[in-house]
């Protein structure tokens, strides 16, 4: 599936909650809990994303022309965010990752996490994923 198609899928998944934030967050927390564990050897200092109140490790790999991510966080909501981002970006081409506008974040009502003051660093997370995608394919 393309990034856009996965975004659409996530939007429809969140649609059932309507304006009810508790459901959305419960879902986000569940996504966080189901996030595939990062390999312990990849929990390195370089893989820590700066700018988060919680610790986030992100490991990026380039395989068969595509980018693959694994990640981990000690905060569960942050982990939910990472899980969403990985779902959108995993196995995509670097160019598509870099160009993705990620409008789904607004659509599912999590825009507040994009504000630069938010300590979970969703912005830093996205920037790092795009940066890694670009760097790995240079």
């Amino acid at each position, binding site marked *: 599936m393309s990034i856009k198609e996965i975004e659409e899928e996530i939007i429809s998944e969140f649609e059932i909650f309507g304006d009810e934030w508790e459901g959305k967050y419960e879902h986000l927390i569940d996504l966080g809990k189901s996030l595939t564990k990062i390999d312990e050897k990849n929990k390195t200092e370089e893989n820590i994303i700066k700018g988060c109140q919680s610790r986030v490790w992100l490991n990026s790999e380039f395989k068969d022309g595509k980018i693959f991510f694994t990640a981990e966080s000690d905060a*569960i909501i*942050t982990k939910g965010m990472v899980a969403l981002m990985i779902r959108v970006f995993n196995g995509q081409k670097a160019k598509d990752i870099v160009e993705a506008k990620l409008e789904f974040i607004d659509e599912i009502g999590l825009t507040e996490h994009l504000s630069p003051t938010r300590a979970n660093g969703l912005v830093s997370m996205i920037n790092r994923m795009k940066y890694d995608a670009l760097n790995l394919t240079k």
Partner: protein
Amino acid sequence: MIDSKHIREQFPILKKWVNNKPLVYFDNGATTQKPQMVIDSIVKYYSEQNANIHRGVHTLSREATELFEASRTTVASFINARPEEIIFTAGTTDSINLVANGLTIAKGSEIIVSQMEHHSNILPWQLWCERNEGKLVILPITKDGSLKIEELEGKITKNTALIALTQVSNTLGVINPVKEIIKKVKKINSEILILIDGAQSVPHMSVDMKELDCDFFVFSGHKMYAPTGSGVLFVKENLINTLKQSRTGGGTIKTVSFEKTEYVDGPLRFEAGTPNIEAVIGLAKACEFMNLVGIKNISDHEHLLLEHAQKELSAISEVEIYANHLNKAAVISFNVKGQHPFDVGTLLDKYGIAVRTGHHCTQPLMSYYGIQGTVRASFGVYNTKEEVDIFVEALKKSIKLLN
């Protein structure tokens, strides 16, 4: 007794809703909201009184100067000091830096701080030590957040020049017996200088410079209902002329020539440049506000909130409170077992509750407890028991969501 309805009416921001819920503001340790009389004083200043101070002969400048100097008197009397002992600064951090950069103590001196200090009461001293071959000595604490006062005497050597301690821990809320400590230290060696960080005490309790007998006392306006950018450095009068200036410029001098400059004595020597005039006027208004409500009333009211919150939170099995006793100002710091403070804070925000999460600029204290951070609820005069109940309910719901 506090008439909460009457108090709350004076704070326009408390009518605000966040995330479709009425705002419950429990981040007073970070900054307090401002009462109408403080806000009005700023508007009035710019509408009717604005002029530069200590300069002009014209009426407006003279009146602005009088207002500024009257504020100094108000603030001095608020902490039972003399106006000549009050230096206006940008805040607590600014005040501590001013002392650290202006000290005339010997190279290689030792400075004692405690394990629970705010970074602002560690870093200026650490920097001083780095630059002057000094040594930073740490006074440890116990698990319940008390200073190990019995170890203090052993930490003092012939090289100890200064002890910097907070009166109330910003993270734990614990009230330190600074008066006894000062007495003890001065008995051991009256030459040792003592700086007390009052940033978290002045908003909650009455402080008295004559009674405390410290050499330096620092606090911020914005944590006590005054505007941001107002702060105070109290310096005992016999010391004020021994402190070197770290900043200089307009308003600090008697005469200037390229060969030699003669500075004025007293606080003005440290207030170079045009100060934050309206913030200082607002600070005096905030002192008036606190006096009108009654500082004892504020303390008593906030203590009831603390007691209630602590009782309710203790009843939640997943909650772990740090410094779980009541010798505290209106601060309660906790974690939910197995959960990151960021998650708890994020969900509480969705319920309209503003708390602080993280290390609270006290990383050495976090290391002591072996944690990344805490959730901190801190109360102010306008908070109510009902708000504590809303908070507790929201916390219970958040825990449920997280599990």
